[in-house]
């Protein structure tokens, strides 16, 4: 990875839910940490999210899901990334996700990192920076 290139992140709100506080706070924290952030806005289909991620050439997709549809949406996004040969784009997420589901999503590789309410934005920033450094090395 070119070290001069800024980390590019797509922050997305898939599904029908409109609670965008978390997504916006994280988007802003990532921008303040020097990343390029694209925010999709609301009510995106998984297809729209993946299309935007590819078009914007991002390193990472951050999904915010509070509607309980996480077990449908995360696998679907990964499936679409695979179909589009864009599996190098990492996926992280946050929202109302019970621990059992959280474990399953991580174990099956549908997300590389997940956060629940109370998470710290600096911890998210740190995770991304380390994940990108690992990827580059």
């Amino acid at each position: 990875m070119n070290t001069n290139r800024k980390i590019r992140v797509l922050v997305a709100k898939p599904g029908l839910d409109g609670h965008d506080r978390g997504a916006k706070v994280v988007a802003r924290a990532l921008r303040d940490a020097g990343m390029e952030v694209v925010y999709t806005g609301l009510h995106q289909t998984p297809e729209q999210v993946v299309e935007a991620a590819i078009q914007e050439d991002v390193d990472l997709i951050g999904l915010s899901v509070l509607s309980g549809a996480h077990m449908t949406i995360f696998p679907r996004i990964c499936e679409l990334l695979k179909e589009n040969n864009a599996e190098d784009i990492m996926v992280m997420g946050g929202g109302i996700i019970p621990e059992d589901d959280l474990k399953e999503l991580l174990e099956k590789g549908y997300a590389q990192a997940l956060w629940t309410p109370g998470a710290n934005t600096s911890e998210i920033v740190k995770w991304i920076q380390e994940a990108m450094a690992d990827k580059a090395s």
Partner: protein
Amino acid sequence: MNANDKEKIRLGKKAWEERTAGKERQKKFMTVSSVPIKPLYTPEDVEDLDYMKDLNYPGAYPYTRGVQPNMYRGRNWTMRQFAGFATATESNERYKYLLSQGQTGLSVAFDMPTIMGYDSDHARSFGEVGRVGVAIDSLDDMETLFSDIPLDKITTSMTINAPASILWCLYIATAEKQGVPSHKLGGTIQNDILKEYIAQKSWIFPPEPSMRLITDIFDFAAQHVPKWNTVSISGYHIREAGSTAVQELAFTLADGFAYVEAGMKAGLDVDAFAPRLSFFFNAHMDFFEEIAKYRAARRIWARRMKEKYGAKDEKSLLLRFHTQTAGCSLTAQQPENNIIRTAYEALGAVLGGTQSLHTNSMDEVLSLPTEKSVRIALRTQQIIAEETGVTNTIDPLAGSYFVEALTNQMEEEAEKYFERIDNYGGVLEAIDEGFFQQEIADAAYRYQQEIEKDERIIVGVNGYTIEESQDIEILKIDPQIEENQRKRVQRVRETRDNIVCNNRLEALRKAAGTSDNLIPVILDAVRAYATEGEIVQVLREVFGEYKEKPIF
């Protein structure tokens, strides 16, 4: 207070300040909304308070001390837990359980497809059916939802906005089937589209046709459903989106004024619909700030309605409100602590004079609540009502130098916001410019930063943390539910009289293009088992869809 007393107080304060200077345990003291708080409030802070003009007695203008003369000494608030999940059958059971446990009103939570106007078998509903609320597609579901619940004996609140007219018609039609005429129905539809554009973001149509649906509801309700609260003007979601208390107060009341103006512009007499407007506020963690917010809200509303909009009916001046404890204050860490948070928030709502209350369950930050957690949440209210004694006297905090000063300050700050909104040309114009959205995003970010810099401590999150794993029971929604509900709506389409149904949808399409009241045609369509998604689709084709410019 004479000049001599004033001077004594001033000198006393000076001496006190000298004794305490520089001896504080932290640099800044501030409310949850980042408003700085003085170490001490004295008579100097409420010097200009005029009891009869600014407070007066409960049930008397400007209603600062409460909208009813005897408040909870006459009757406790309505205990109304927001509930709904999976399908109508499961939710119907939960309602009966809550009623058996002493709940006094119903409050329906709909799932995202219902909120956004999609049937359960629509592609966009995939993975979302029955997840955050109950799936309602047609009259068939609504009849099941309220089966064996007499709609003339219970009041129901429905949290539905963009498609509120349709769900309201479904309720009216369900009551008809139970033999209950519409004039006997009591309850509330949230129906607050302005806060959707501002904060909650569950919109369908653009603002103008949305406002028309709302004024159609005002008009129809005044004639046929006179006991119904036609809008629950909601600050709750504005606060959950990250606003401060003052922003919640100001933006909510500004929305209320916008509905009043829309109703008057549609040719309705203000007193014909204003008595049926109600409010919905958040109860956040900062105890006194919240109480001051409710007190200021009543006073501002009464003053404006009387002085600016010329309301004559006393009922038009009363700000009646439901409260929900702050979902956003709950933590996934040490979730049992949420019971305690909720209890303090509920106490604030009660001391602030709420008419109805929902207390959150400890597990809502993880999933929908279990039966046990919702029972504890309901018991929280019952303990306040039965054991704490805070309901024995009305507005017990009145006259507190701090509470009165904070109430005044809230009113002044809200007035400044009204001026800024007026400068944009009104609420719709300010939405268009992203004003509210940016103010709220800024406040949410500031709050998060304060936590991350340890300027405020959230127990279990950045203070008093423990190593833990989740060991509380979680309500799971069986994925099979979605499949069943899809089949159910398809069966409705197969078994209804499709000729009648299509004719009524066509009648709706025609009426939508005129300025006729749409409620009677929607009511006819739902009676013929037209689905919610079909009705919304007709309106979407005529009205178009709203698109937001995303900002952060």
